[in-house]
């Protein structure tokens, strides 16, 4: 046999991989092809870079210092966005607030992601009675009036601080995700690869987290980007009502909360309006990027 062609298996796999772009690559291509998504991404990077790098050029101690000679100053060259009731620079607080709000949004999203994913996987993988009990509990959690419960918990918890606030928000943030993952896991567990793995005696936790999970990962990533915006909205909303971040940790909601006084809404707009608009812009940007990622995860919807 002269014509035998030797095939290098590794080479073949590598070539296959090149033809089959990774999820990250697909997302990137999807974003590039959507004008709104690329603008949103750039805008978001600029906002976050400014916010996270702001401690380098903003004196945080000076930012907290109260100066009664300088209260309620309109925007000027020295204070780009004016000053608040304590004569503190609004622009500096806006940057610190954006940083805190975003960090908390990320933390809540990650915790909710891990809890929701585990809960959904376990419930969907085992099915039957386990699924039944876990779903009844989830249904119960979902009918609770969330906003009221969070506010009550925030008021009655002793030694309330940022960490407890993140945990309280997370209690109610994982519910939708768990239900979504569970319904996909239920479909997934009927597939051959799971059955094959079960027959071979792979432990259940290994099947769930190392075999099932990779197939659901794009779903999780999409859901987390979309809920990130929602979580930032909830955090700033609660802080706006006065039941969010503890005093001393400014959030975008803290600045918007000034608007609960009619005089400030009308005459001192520079204190609250920029923060409100910044929340709006951040939400829109995250959502546009999230929608692009969502399209990337579903081949039928792709634009690129």
């Amino acid at each position, binding site marked *: 046999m002269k014509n035998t062609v030797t095939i290098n298996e590794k080479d073949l796999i590598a070539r296959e991989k090149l033809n089959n772009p990774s999820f990250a690559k697909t997302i990137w291509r999807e974003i590039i092809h959507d004008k709104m998504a690329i603008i949103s991404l750039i805008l978001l990077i600029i906002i976050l870079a400014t916010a996270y790098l702001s401690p380098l050029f903003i004196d945080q101690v000076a930012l907290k210092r109260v100066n009664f000679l300088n209260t309620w100053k309109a925007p000027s060259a020295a204070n780009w966005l004016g000053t608040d009731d304590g004569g503190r620079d609004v622009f500096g607080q806006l940057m610190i607030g954006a940083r805190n709000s975003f960090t908390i949004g990320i933390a809540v999203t990650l915790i909710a992601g891990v809890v929701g994913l585990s809960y959904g996987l376990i419930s969907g993988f085992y099915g039957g009675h386990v699924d039944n009990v876990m779903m*009844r509990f989830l*249904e*119960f959690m979902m*009918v*609770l*009036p*969330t*906003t*009221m*419960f969070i*506010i*009550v*918990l925030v*008021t*009655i918890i002793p030694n309330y601080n940022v960490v407890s606030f993140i945990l309280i928000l997370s209690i109610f943030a994982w519910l939708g995700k768990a239900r979504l993952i569970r319904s996909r896991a239920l479909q997934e567990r009927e597939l051959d690869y799971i059955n094959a793995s079960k027959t071979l005696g792979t432990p259940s936790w290994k099947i769930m987290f190392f075999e099932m999970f990779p197939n659901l990962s794009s779903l999780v990533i999409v859901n987390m980007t979309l809920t990130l*915006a929602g979580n930032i*909205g*909830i955090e*700033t*909303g609660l802080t*706006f*009502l*006065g*039941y969010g971040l503890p005093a001393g940790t400014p959030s975008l909601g803290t600045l*918007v909360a000034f*608007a*609960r006084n*009619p005089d400030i*809404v*009308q005459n001192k*707009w520079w204190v*609250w*309006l920029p923060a*409100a608009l910044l*929340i*709006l812009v951040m*939400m*829109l940007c*995250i*959502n*546009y990027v999230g*929608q692009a990622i969502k399209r990337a995860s579903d081949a039928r919807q792709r634009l690129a």
Partner: protein
Amino acid sequence: MLKFILRRTLIMIPQLILLSLVIFVLAKAMPGDAVTGAFMGNPDATPEQIEKIREKFGLNDPWYVQYGRWIGKAVKGDFGQSYTHQQPVTTLIAGRVENTVLLSLFTAIMIYLIAIPLGIVAGRWTDSWADKLIVTYNYVAFATPLFVFALLMLFIFAFLLGWFPYGGSVDIRIESGTWDYVVSRAKHLFLPVMSAAIIGTVGTIQYLRNDIIDQKNKDYVKTARSKGVPEGRVYTRHILRNSLLPIAAFLGYEITGLISGSVFIETIFSYQGLGQLFIQSIGLRDFTVVTALVLISGTAVVVGTMLSDIILSIVDPRIRIE
């Protein structure tokens, strides 16, 4: 059918019991009880006197006895005494409930008035400029937090343009019962209702649009077309009949959103309803009022969800749980 309704109603009972238990635990964790209320402003009370009062109020009983007494009274509509307002919680809530019900009712009506025509247009003329506009509006409304939008509405329409009052539920100088009273009431309702409704349309528009797009190519629609039904009638008579029914059933699910929305909307527009009462009471640490409000809202959500489930199952027999 009857079996499903019975089943769904039975699921509600453990939910309500669990809900009341959770709220009872929270209420116990809140600082202060009936005794704190009775002794407010009386620092001379001796420990013996306090102990006597505690015994009288049954605060030394085991928790299940206390829970039974509390829930028994709550079912009869007795939520105890508010110590900051010095009147029964039930009276306090009764005075506010009308405002919140009005606000929620008009918001729900407004949501349907906006969402149904937009959803139909977007679904019928997919990819037209109108559809693109509606989808963009839906994106933006989905992303915008309610409180930010309500504040911007307040700032633009009440302060900058001055078209609407910026707070309250009615002009206090106007006598109740007159035409002017109704007009003033409507003016005070307009901004809060519109703010909540414009943001609240998201789910309905999206559902309606997707459903119409799905229905468009179904066999029954093709049959209707091929037997010569005019295009307009295909939509009004054939497709809408299928697509609109579930939308009506969603009303029960909307209650959750309306309740949490009312907390923000009523605070921003200083509208005297239950949401504002909740925020005021929690600020004043008036926990009997807080407990009652959480229990009432929780029950409303549980019952609303049950009603929606039942109506949906009547409309669409496929989703009945076995």
